[in-house]
C-alpha cells in the first residue's frame, strides 16, 4: 500500500512516526465499497453516531446526576428544571435510547434480509450480536437510574429472573442486588456499570469495524466484488450519502426530542420509586417488549418450570442469532434471489411486531395464545425454517457482477436495480 501523497511537511513528519494519515487514506479514501449500496446501508453509521450522541449526553448528565435512592429522582428533575439546557441533554439521552434501538433493529433486519451474516462475515455478525446484548444491558440499567416507579419495578422483575436458576438462583439475585432488595447498592452499581458498558461497546464496535473492513460491505445483490468496476471509494461517495441519511434521521429524532419527548416513555416513571406500592402494570420500554412477551408466554415445558423456561427462551432468543451463519444453509446471500426466503423474512418482521404487541398487554385472553404462537414461530423461524428453506429453495440466477447488474437498467429480470434504489 503506497503511502498517501502528503504535501504538508508536518503531516509527513507525523505520518512517518504515527501513520494515522495513511490509515485514514486507506480506510476512507481507498476503502473500496460496492457501488450499489442502498439506503438500508446507512443504518450502520447511524448506529455509530447514536452511540457517540449517547456517550456525550450521558457524560454531561452524569455531572449533575446523583446515584442515591433518596436523591436520584430529584436530581433528574433538577437537570430538567435548573441546569442550563439540562432538559435538552436529558431528552436527547432518553429518546436517544429509543432511536438507538430503532436504528440498530433496522440494521439487524437489513443484515437478515441480505444475508450479511454469511461467509466470510460470520464473526462480523456475531460481534454485532455481542453489541446488541451489551446495549440491552446498558439500556436496562440506564432506565433504572431516574428511580421512578417503572425504574424500580422493572429492575426488580428483571433481576428476579435470575432466581429461576436452580440451586444458586437466589444467591445470584442477592449478589446482583447487593442486599436483600433492590436498593441503594443496586442503584450505585447500575450507575457504575451504565457508565462503563458504553465504552466496552465502543471496543466491540472497533472490532466490528475491523471485521467489516477485512472483506468490505455486503450489498443488495449479495455477490462479491469482482473488480474495480464493482466498487467506488468510501469517500466521498458514502460519506456524503451517510451524511444526507444522518440529516433525515436527525430531523425525525429532533421532532421527538423537541415536540413529543415523552411519547415513547411511561408516565409511571415520573412517579418516584416506591417499594411499597406496585404499579398496576409493569412494562419495559418498547424496545424490550418482544423479549418481554417471550418471557411471559412460555408455559411449563416438561420438567422445566415456566419461569425458568421463560428465562431460557428470553436468552435463547438472542443466543440463536449467534448460530445464524450455520443455521442458514442457503449459499445465496441476498433475499432478492431467494424466492421463498424473501417472503418468510417478512413473517419474522410481523412475528416480532406481534410479540411486541403482546408484550405491552397483560397475558390474558387471546394474548396468551398469540404470545405463545408468536414465541413458537420465532424459534421455528430460525431453527427449522432457516435450514429447511436453504435446502429446498431454488435460488434465482445471480448476476455475473455488480457492475453488470447495475448498468443493465430497466429490463433486468433480476430485480437488480440502480445503486440509488429506494424501497
Amino acid at each position, binding site marked *: 500500500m503506497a503511502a498517501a501523497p502528503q504535501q504538508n511537511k508536518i503531516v509527513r513528519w507525523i505520518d512517518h512516526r504515527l501513520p494515522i494519515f495513511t490509515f485514514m487514506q486507506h480506510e476512507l479514501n481507498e476503502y473500496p465499497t460496492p*457501488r450499489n449500496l442502498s*439506503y*438500508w446501508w446507512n443504518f450502520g453509521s447511524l448506529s455509530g453516531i447514536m452511540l457517540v450522541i449517547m456517550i456525550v449526553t450521558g457524560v454531561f448528565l452524569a455531572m449533575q446526576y446523583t446515584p442515591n435512592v433518596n436523591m436520584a429522582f*430529584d436530581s433528574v*428533575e433538577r437537570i*430538567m*428544571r435548573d441546569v442550563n439546557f439540562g*432538559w*435538552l441533554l436529558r*431528552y436527547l439521552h432518553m429518546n436517544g435510547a*429509543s432511536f438507538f434501538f*430503532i436504528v440498530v*433493529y*433496522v440494521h439487524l*433486519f437489513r443484515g437478515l434480509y441480505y444475508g450479511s451474516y454469511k461467509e466470510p462475515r460470520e464473526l462480523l455478525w456475531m460481534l454485532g450480536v455481542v453489541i446488541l446484548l451489551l446495549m440491552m444491558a446498558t439500556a436496562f440499567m440506564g432506565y433504572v437510574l431516574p428511580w421512578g416507579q417503572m425504574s424500580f419495578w422493572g429492575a426488580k422483575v428483571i433481576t428476579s429472573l435470575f432466581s429461576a436458576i436452580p440451586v444458586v438462583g437466589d444467591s445470584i439475585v442477592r449478589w446482583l442486588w447487593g442486599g436483600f432488595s433492590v436498593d441503594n447498592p443496586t442503584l450505585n452499581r447500575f450507575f457504575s456499570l451504565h457508565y462503563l458498558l458504553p465504552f466496552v461497546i465502543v471496543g466491540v464496535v472497533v472490532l466490528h469495524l475491523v471485521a467489516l473492513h477485512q472483506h468490505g460491505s455486503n450489498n443488495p445483490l449479495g455477490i462479491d466484488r469482482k473488480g474495480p468496476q464493482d466498487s*467506488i471509494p468510501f469517500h*466521498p*461517495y458514502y460519506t*456524503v*450519502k451517510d*451524511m*444526507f441519511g444522518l*440529516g*433525515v434521521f*436527525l*430531523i425525525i429524532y*429532533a*421532532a421527538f*426530542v*423537541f*415536540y413529543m*419527548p*415523552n*411519547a*415513547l416513555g*411511561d*408516565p*409511571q416513571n*415520573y*412517579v418516584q420509586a416506591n417499594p411499597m406500592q406496585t404499579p*398496576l*402494570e409493569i*412494562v419495559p420500554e*418498547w424496545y424490550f*417488549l418482544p423479549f418481554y412477551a417471550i418471557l411471559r408466554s412460555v408455559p411449563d415445558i416438561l420438567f422445566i418450570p415456566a419461569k425458568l423456561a421463560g428465562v431460557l427462551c428470553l436468552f435463547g432468543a438472542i443466543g440463536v442469532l449467534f448460530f445464524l451463519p450455520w443455521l442458514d444453509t442457503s449459499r445465496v446471500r441476498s433475499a432478492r434471489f431467494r424466492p421463498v426466503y424473501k417472503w418468510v423474512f417478512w413473517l419474522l*418482521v410481523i412475528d416480532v*411486531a406481534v410479540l*411486541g*404487541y403482546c408484550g*405491552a*398487554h*397483560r397475558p390474558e385472553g387471546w394474548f396468551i395464545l398469540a404470545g405463545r404462537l408468536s414465541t413458537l414461530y420465532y424459534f421455528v423461524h430460525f431453527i427449522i425454517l432457516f435450514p429447511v428453506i436453504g435446502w429446498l429453495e431454488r435460488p434465482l440466477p445471480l448476476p455475473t457482477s455488480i457492475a453488470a447488474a447495475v448498468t443493465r437498467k430497466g429490463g433486468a429480470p433480476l430485480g437488480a436495480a*440502480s*445503486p*440509488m434504489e*429506494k*424501497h
Partner: protein
Amino acid sequence: MRALALAVALFALAVVPAGAQEETPLPKQSWSFDGPFGTYDRAAAQRGFQVYEEVCSHCHSMNLLHYRDLEGIGYSEDEIKAIAAAQQVTDGPNDQGEMYQRPGRPSDAFVPPFANPEAARAALNGALPPDLSLIIKAREGGPDYVDGLLQGYKNPPAGMKMADNMQYNEYFTGHQIAMPPPLAGDDVKFADGTKATLTQEAHDVATFLTWASEPTMEERKFTGAKVLIFLLVMTGVLYGAKRQIWAAVH
C-alpha cells in the same frame, strides 16, 4: 415504502401500552400549550396558581418548585417576593443551634402542607395526597386527566359499595378516590375578575400544573423550531451534494 412500514410498526409498538385498561374516556380539551407553537396562557396559569394556593395547597405539596420559578408564568420579582414572604419557612440551625421560623424568600421551595407523609396520613383519614409537581406528566392523559378528575365527581352507580371516606369519581382508576371534591365553583375570587366556575377553575389549575410539570416547554419548542429549520436546510444542501457527487456513478 418498506422503511415507512417498519417505522410505523415500531412506533405502533411504542404507543400500544397506553390504553391498557377500560375507563370512561377523558374529554379532550383544547389547551393554550397544545401543538408545536403552543405556549402557556400566563393569565390562566396565574389563576391556576391562585387555585393551588387557596385550595390544593392545604393538602398537596409541590416539592420540586421554588417561588422564583413563578417568574415563568409572568409574576414580577416583587410579586414573587410577596408570595414567598406570606409563607413561614423553617430555617437553621442558627448560632444557638436552634431551628427558627422566617418569612419565605424567592429561592425557597414551595412550603409543603405537612412535615412528612405520616403527618399527612394522620390528618387525612390515612390517605396520602400525591405531590403535584409532576402530576401532569405522571398520569396518562396529562392535563385532560386532571381537568376531568376535578370535575368527575358523581354519585356512585346504584349497587356499588363505597369504602369508608371514599368518593366516586368517573375518571379515577377503580372509581374510588379518597380526595373529597376539592372544587365546586366560586372557591376563589380571581384577581383578574374572571368568573370562577368549576370548569374555569379546573381548566386553569390544569394549565398551572402543566407548566409546573414542564416549565422549560416553551424554551424547548422555540429551540426545536430553530434546530429543525437548521436541519432541514442542512439536509437539503447535503441532498444536493449527494446528487452532485453521485452523478458520475449513475
